[in-house]
């Protein structure tokens, strides 16, 4: 059984290499907390809070850092009367 498992496996080192390259590219680009995705996250949240009371519990931020493309998804629940309060 052990032998069978050994032969059926693909090597894992290429996966390690690729993961590290992506991660380190992002970490080297980041000085302090100021990499682009983090900066965008903070500025988007700040911009929104200017116009409405943001309930922290209703905000979901997801990031996925890729080799070529990173994605930032900010999901905010805007209550019906949010605009009136700010006005």
């Amino acid at each position, binding site marked *: 059984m052990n032998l069978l498992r050994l032969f059926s496996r693909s090597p894992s080192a290429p*996966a*390690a290499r690729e993961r590290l390259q992506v991660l380190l590219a992002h970490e080297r680009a980041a000085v302090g907390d100021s990499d682009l995705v983090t900066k965008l996250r903070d500025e988007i949240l700040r911009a929104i809070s200017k116009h409405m009371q943001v309930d*922290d519990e209703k905000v979901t931020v997801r990031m996925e850092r890729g080799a070529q493309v990173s994605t930032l998804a900010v999901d905010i629940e805007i209550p019906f009367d949010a605009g009136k309060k700010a006005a």
Partner: protein
Amino acid sequence: MGKVIVVTSGKGGVGKTTSSAALGAALAQGGEKVVVIDFDVGLRNLDLVMGAERRVVYDIVNVIQGEAKLTQALIRDKRVETLYLLPASQTRDKDNLTAEGVAAVIGALKQSFDWVICDSPAGIERGATLAMRHADIAIVVTNPEVSSVRDSDRIIGLLDSKTLRAENGERVEKHLLLTRYDPARAERGDMLKVDDVLEILSIPLLGIIPESMDVLRASNIGSPVTLADDRSAPAIAYFEAVRRLKGESLPVAIPGEKRGFFGKFFGRKAA
């Protein structure tokens, strides 16, 4: 109310992070709700070992400084839905980890998780003492090697004096997890044997994790070893450790003592 576990060792590189990920995943695979916290501010790696490094949005320091809610900082595992990670900060100074902040975070997590696993950094500085501070249970990760055993002894002393439980006159439940155990070397007499380590440290044995390629392989692909290959020797050892952690009395098999056909013929020749 959940239980708080610290995975600690004093010495670096013995397998704290690997074990935190594997034990956390093994518990979650059994249906328990688990959060694993990385306390290694500045040198985080639990995210990488668990394969969540590209999804870190906020970290424990953001939560403590009030820049993010706890629920926003938790990362849910993509494979096991009851497994969560709270990453350490990679860029902030470790002084941002305040005692009050850590107490608040752990207090809140205990409310909604069955197990809160604190992955301690190496050393005996702030990060390590804060990681053990709120522990109900301590898992002392030790390699069968002199410097690791010495450092574990030091850590056991700290668990008996610097934790909240110790200060309140209670005991932290301590367990030894022997990792990177190489049966062939132990057999040749080149490695401390299980009984040697147990006699020196005199805390109960939670499990023996054999030295294995499967562990390296699992970290390469960013998966706790119990998820990467649940039938591998280290995965089986972690699953058994988790059963003991939950109170089951299960004898610990010492790797290599059960000799197969080839072992009987060739095993003893080197001695």
